[in-house]
């Protein structure tokens, strides 16, 4: 995959991060991502991210569970093997409410968690890069993606002017699977492009 360049800056306060995000977007830079140690309400809106539709998916999984439970129990008790239980009707919907409810919740919860993992592309043994290890501790790390029009030095200076600390240019192979857990063992060397000398 292609190697991409990122300008990475860290903020130590979300109150500095918010105006910075707005100004960076207004200046026309492309924000690759902002990594934060905890959810910051409103940051997704500030970055211009769309709302997630995970809740809609949860609803669809839920009604799938409802339909599965009602359909299956009806089939079993009215068609496949009708049991005479104390002379009560074979199709006894009120008695099925508990199981129907439980399966609704089960399908919805399991489905949503799996969808969450799929959308975020997370799974055991997946390694990812988030530029700065302290972004899971106390720093708010903003990564700008350098496009063909971006002047790195300007971008670095711009981030610094917005209050970012420790701003640097990093080269990464693009792709969600790229990553490492620590800086000591780099999986991918950031190779400098060397001009041919011959």
């Amino acid at each position: 995959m292609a190697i991409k360049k990122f300008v990475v800056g860290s903020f130590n306060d979300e109150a500095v991060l918010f105006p910075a995000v707005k100004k960076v977007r207004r200046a026309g830079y492309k924000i690759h991502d902002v990594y934060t140690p905890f959810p910051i309400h409103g940051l997704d809106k500030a970055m211009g991210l769309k709302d997630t539709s995970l809740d809609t998916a949860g609803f669809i999984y839920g009604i799938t569970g409802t339909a599965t439970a009602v359909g299956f129990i009806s089939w079993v008790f009215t068609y496949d093997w009708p049991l005479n239980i104390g002379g009560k009707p074979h199709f006894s919907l009120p008695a099925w409410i508990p199981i129907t409810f439980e399966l609704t919740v089960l399908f919805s919860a399991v489905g949503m968690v799996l969808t969450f993992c799929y959308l975020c592309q997370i799974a055991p043994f997946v390694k990812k890069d988030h530029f700065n290890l302290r972004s899971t501790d106390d720093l708010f790390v903003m990564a700008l993606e350098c496009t063909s029009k971006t002047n790195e030095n300007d971008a670095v200076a711009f981030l610094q002017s917005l209050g970012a600390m420790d701003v640097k240019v990093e080269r990464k192979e693009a792709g969600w699977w790229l990553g490492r857990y620590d800086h000591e063992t780099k999986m991918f060397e950031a190779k400098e492009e060397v001009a041919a000398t011959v």
Partner: protein
Amino acid sequence: MALLRYESQVRAPLIVGDKDYHQVTEDICRPVEAAPTRAWWIGFLISVAFLTFGIVSVTFEVIYGVGQWNLNKTVGWGWDITNFVWWIGIGHAGTLISAILLLFRQGWRTGVNRAAEAMTIFAVMCAGQFPIWHMGRVWMAFFVLPYPNTRGPVWPNFNSALLWDVFAISTYFTVSLLFWYSGLLPDLATLRDRARLKWRKMFYGVASMGWTGSTKHWQRFETLALVLAGLSTPLVLSVHTIVSFDFATSVVPGWHTTIFPPYFVAGAIFSGFAMVQTLLVITRKVLNLQDYITIEHIEVMNKVIVLTGSIVGIAYLTELFVAWYGANPYEWYAFKENRLNLNSPYGWSYWIMMGCNVLSPQIFWFRKMRRSLLVTFFMSIIVNIGMWFERFVIIVTSVYRDYLPSAHSVYYAPTIWEVGFYMGTFGLFFTCYFLFAKFFPVIALAEIKHILKRSGENYKKKMDEVEHESVEEFAEVHGHDHGA
């Protein structure tokens, strides 16, 4: 927008001391990253010893059958189903704290939710043991599941409260586990990024599943947490409702009451909070987390205990009144002769229940008592003893005297193997809890950081001066515009 961050001085801080984000990480990760202490080893080994005793007891039961227990003709459910309902009830407080209080936006839950959710999972694991091993031929336990079989296929009875239980408990366990673990991911990622040792990097790397803290991921994470909380809230109420149906849908005098579902749910939350107190009063001391699990947290939970204890008390009295007012002689006999009468074989258990669950929690009307760690710890044990006796009273005193005097069974007392099984689940519970407290952060790191600037002591002090400023002035200085 910005003003939502402000919290009045009237509310006590939830995080004590001069903390910043990094200090929070340090404080909460320290017990995980340090070598296990001597106290940890002692506690862990005692738990494993109990667990071993439980395994031996269960092995005897499997080899020789349920006859190893002292169950008899009418008392078919003795200690084991008492213990089952007791453990399931304990689990409920964890879900209440993590789900219902999330929906109610209660900031104090962040200090205790992770440990309480873990407690839920371990308690449900313990509870599940009892019906499973009570089956006798446990290798046929899978018969309860509706799977295509060569016997017809004969399906389980979907109209039976016992099958509802199978679905309720297994769903409850699965959903609680998913909720707990998805919430743990960011904290495991923090441990992964702090790790120095190779095995730690690998362990937390695999466990955190590649969490990065990307804004988009947080957005989905919050939606997931909110919807799972919304699902867990009716789920937790349904679970104990369905457990109470095991009794309430029967025609046994003493069980045949419509008040059971709400009464069981209130009792479950009551006993669950008592267990949370037992665990956290010790955890905060041993792991030195008094700054995060403060006296305020303890006091709030004691308020929940006095509230739910009083609901349970009302339920006992209502049940008693209706048994008399209903004019069913069998029902009234079950209450008057089997329970109220102190001279009856099990009369003592009814009065232990009343004393522990209804009278003793009233001490928490006094602020001084609510804020005393010693009283809290003592009461948490008393409440759990009382709630165990509640289930014992319901189960045993309702069935030990059947309709005909000839079926009035001999006195039911457990054998050593029944007691051993119960002790064994304590071993299982505490073994799991000790491992959890050693390898996972017992406090939700990300959530604490989220409320730090609103409820942290040093930040609240800074807010003190702005309380006198005008709203516009305050927003100008301290707010930041969240608008896109």
